[in-house]
């Protein structure tokens, strides 16, 4: 009988302690001890003070946005990744531009094959180069520049203004 009463009293005591801890949360000492053991976990005080909201009651869209923000994606993270913008392609050359380039190309190739440019040939090549688009003009002039620097092109009167 005495044993039974003692058992009931101990049981009520344990229940009381359990109710207190469950109702008020762990003590400051317990929390600090827990934090010291597992410092990477979020502070339990914060979660203890957070209002108890049922996840199921939160609007899904809001939840998704909050999750995206928490994961560092920002507000628009749930939107599908934008497709890479293709580089703006230059328009294809017109027949006249293609013909002008071919003509200038032939002039440069001829100069490189001969390894020399007279003043008249330079005048002629300049006229051809001035008809091509700026980028092709630059590329062809650079070929002549390299040939000159390599000693493979002799230019009469130093006329290299192309």
């Amino acid at each position, binding site marked *: 009988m005495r044993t039974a009463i003692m058992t009931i009293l101990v049981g009520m005591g344990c229940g009381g302690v359990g109710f207190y801890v469950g109702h008020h949360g762990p003590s400051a000492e317990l929390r600090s001890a827990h934090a010291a053991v597992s410092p990477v976990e979020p502070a339990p005080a914060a979660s203890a003070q957070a209002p108890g909201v049922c996840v199921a009651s939160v609007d899904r869209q809001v939840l998704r946005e909050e999750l995206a923000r928490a994961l560092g994606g920002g507000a628009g993270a749930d939107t599908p990744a934008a497709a890479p913008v293709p580089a703006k392609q230059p328009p294809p050359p017109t027949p006249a531009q293609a013909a002008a380039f071919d003509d200038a190309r032939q002039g440069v190739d001829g100069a490189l094959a001969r390894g020399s440019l007279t003043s008249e040939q330079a005048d002629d090549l300049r006229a051809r180069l001035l008809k091509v688009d700026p980028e092709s003009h630059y590329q062809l002039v*650079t070929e002549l*520049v390299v040939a000159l*620097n390599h000693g493979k092109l002799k230019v009469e009167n*130093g006329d*290299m*203004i192309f």
Partner: protein
Amino acid sequence: MPKSKWKSKWKLVMVVTGVVLMAAGAARAGYKLQTGQVRMSRNDVDYSGFASGTLSNARSSSDSNQRIYCYTYPTFGACVAFPSTLTSGISCSTQDAGMLAVMRSVNGDSSVFFQADTQGNCVNVVVYNDSANMPKLN
């Protein structure tokens, strides 16, 4: 010849001489560079190199080979140099906006320095618009 007449004539000669000397001195005042010939250096392995020269000196040189210039279009430009001692020259071209601006600052009294890499690209263009440069007269 009377002594007084000889004295006044001597004075006149002195005054004229002084004026001429002063004028000559004024005309020659200021620091002047005496060199500015077109020079170039080229690496015979990778064909990179550089050149320098003053436009006025190149033009007034006694030989008929020296020439140095830069020319530009809206999107690219080039500098070219031919020294007196070589029949070949060196050149570089560029699309770099900064170097194009430098090239466009060349005038008849400028000194130009440029450097070309192995592909003929300009890696450096410098223009000196210096009062010490000889003016290009014709």
